[in-house]
């Protein structure tokens, strides 16, 4: 079974700080990491390979620096990796990104299953996987917490808002996964050495003669970011300090009464 994992290299959003002068994100010095959910996607793929045989291919669209992240994926059990990189891809929104990824997958060839993270922590849209399956014309099984393959069928436990749906479809198909599906393994000295020996191939726009150049990059993106800003926090209210517990409780109960919450009439 041949599985393709889509991986995005992102800035570590937990390390991002806001510049208090300009109110913008400080990205300098922020480490780049493999999008955490994509590690779950990779782990799910490697586990399926261990059960059924086959290959795991990781692809990433991004700048040359994303090779570092692909290398990490190779050390976590992937067999091959492709970097999809070209100036023509810059500025792509999820429509264009998913089209480029889908075109690259068609270029790479044979696959049975594609696994994506449910969301990339930077752009945070969670749209790329489902859009890609539409471009490829294959079914999608999103928010999977368990993936099983038997013969030509994939069965998934899919998280819904009020429970779990067990759902199946014929391969080829695409799944998206979150952190509940597994605990990603860590690399070993040996697996890192193995990874170092694997060449990471590049895919450029010229490698894909069939790609529609009107549908990629900024030009191919229907959405436009008009402005960005850091969320402001409304400062308000009253802080009670140095009160005894009794005093604090009396003050709170008084406040709740004033708000009519105690009478069950919320205002």
């Amino acid at each position, binding site marked *: 079974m041949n599985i393709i994992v889509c991986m995005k290299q992102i800035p570590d959003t937990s390390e991002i700080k806001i510049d208090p002068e300009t109110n913008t994100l400080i990205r300098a010095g922020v480490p780049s990491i493999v999008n955490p959910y994509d590690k779950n996607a990779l782990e799910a793929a490697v586990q399926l390979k261990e059960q059924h045989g086959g290959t795991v291919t990781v692809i990433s669209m991004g700048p040359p620096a994303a090779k570092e992240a692909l290398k990490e994926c190779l050390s976590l059990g992937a067999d091959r990796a492709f970097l999809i990189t070209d100036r023509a891809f810059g500025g792509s929104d999820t429509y264009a990104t998913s089209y480029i990824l889908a075109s690259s997958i068609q270029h790479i060839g044979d696959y049975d299953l594609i696994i994506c993270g449910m969301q990339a*922590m930077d752009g*945070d849209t969670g749209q790329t996987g489902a859009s890609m399956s539409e471009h490829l014309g294959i*079914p999608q099984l999103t928010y999977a917490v368990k993936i099983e393959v038997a013969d030509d069928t994939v069965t998934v436990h899919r998280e*819904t808002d009020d429970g779990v749906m*067990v759902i199946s479809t014929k391969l080829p198909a695409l799944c998206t996964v979150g952190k509940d599906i597994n605990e990603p393994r860590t690399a070993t000295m040996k697996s890192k050495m193995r990874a170092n020996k694997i060449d990471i191939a590049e895919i450029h726009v010229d490698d894909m003669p069939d790609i529609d150049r009107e549908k990629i990059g900024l030009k191919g993106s229907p959405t436009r970011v008009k402005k960005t800003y850091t*969320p402001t*926090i409304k400062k308000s209210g009253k802080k009670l300090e140095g009160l005894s517990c009794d005093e604090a*409780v009396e003050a709170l109960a008084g406040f709740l*009464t004033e708000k009519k919450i105690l009478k069950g009439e*919320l205002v």
Partner: protein
Amino acid sequence: MEAMTKDLWVFVETNEDGTAKNVGIELLTPGKLLAEKQGGSLVAVILGENVEKAVNMAGRHGADKIIAAEAPELRAYSTDAYTEAICKLVKKYGPTSMMIGATNNGRDLGPRVSCRLQTGLVADCTALDIDEESGNVAWTRPAFGGNLMATILCPDHRPQIGTVRPGVFKKREPVENRAEIIREEIHIDPKDIRTRILDLITYMNSENVDLEGAEIIVSGGRGVGGPEGFGPVKALADALGGTVGASRAAVDAGWISHAHQVGQTGKTVGPKLYIACGISGAIQHLAGMSGSDCVIAINKDPDAPIFDVANYGVVGDLFEVLPALTEELRKDRAEA
């Protein structure tokens, strides 16, 4: 494609019993304002089987028109049937914009629909307006783990589509249902639904936490110290008739299930009263609860950022304050 009307559509997702999910009804509130500014009607689009209850709810909460399509193949959500139905309707009626609730199903459907219609999709919005300059919908959403807000337009493609987070907008007061109701026949060939549902497991009641619809929420964070620390939190919630929420730190520690999590990667809530106990007030937590009408914070650390958003902050130990407050409330209730 070109828009044929100035109408704004709200996709109202249904439950299997034919009622509407909260978020679809919530979206009719901002939908009304945007539709007026766009100069068109507010249209609720409802798919399912036996959807009369949802039709009635949409009518009573402000839809001008309702397009209802019923078919056995639409009873349970499937990507293929729902995408097919929505795209057919969009091509027939040509709305200029469309909102979809950002539930797991909505986020499954949105990208498939927008991709098939070759238009843009803005994800997980928390604020909506019309861009003064261009007249396009200005969709505002958090990104970078809630550290950044982005306002996004879809200038040249129609319809403009966005998914919108549940719990951000409030339902309007119900009025008399005067909506024009359009019944659509949609035929879906069962063979075109490539997925098969083998089982549906609905979480047990204890897991079915309606934070988005709650009027009072009492939340616990890392400060509660362990699973048993949610005892006093729950007791206060019960005394107030409220629902229990949690920070991600408490959820990740395994003290309470993810269904209770409030924030960027949990639920967005907008209760009348939010009581944060032992929660520091990280930006990702605030992203989920800053729409609350009134916030009370109880925290040992006087410098905790949660006090910046609290209307009323108590610097103190939650294990002292909560039980005493619960007791006081019970006493007052008994007297009243």
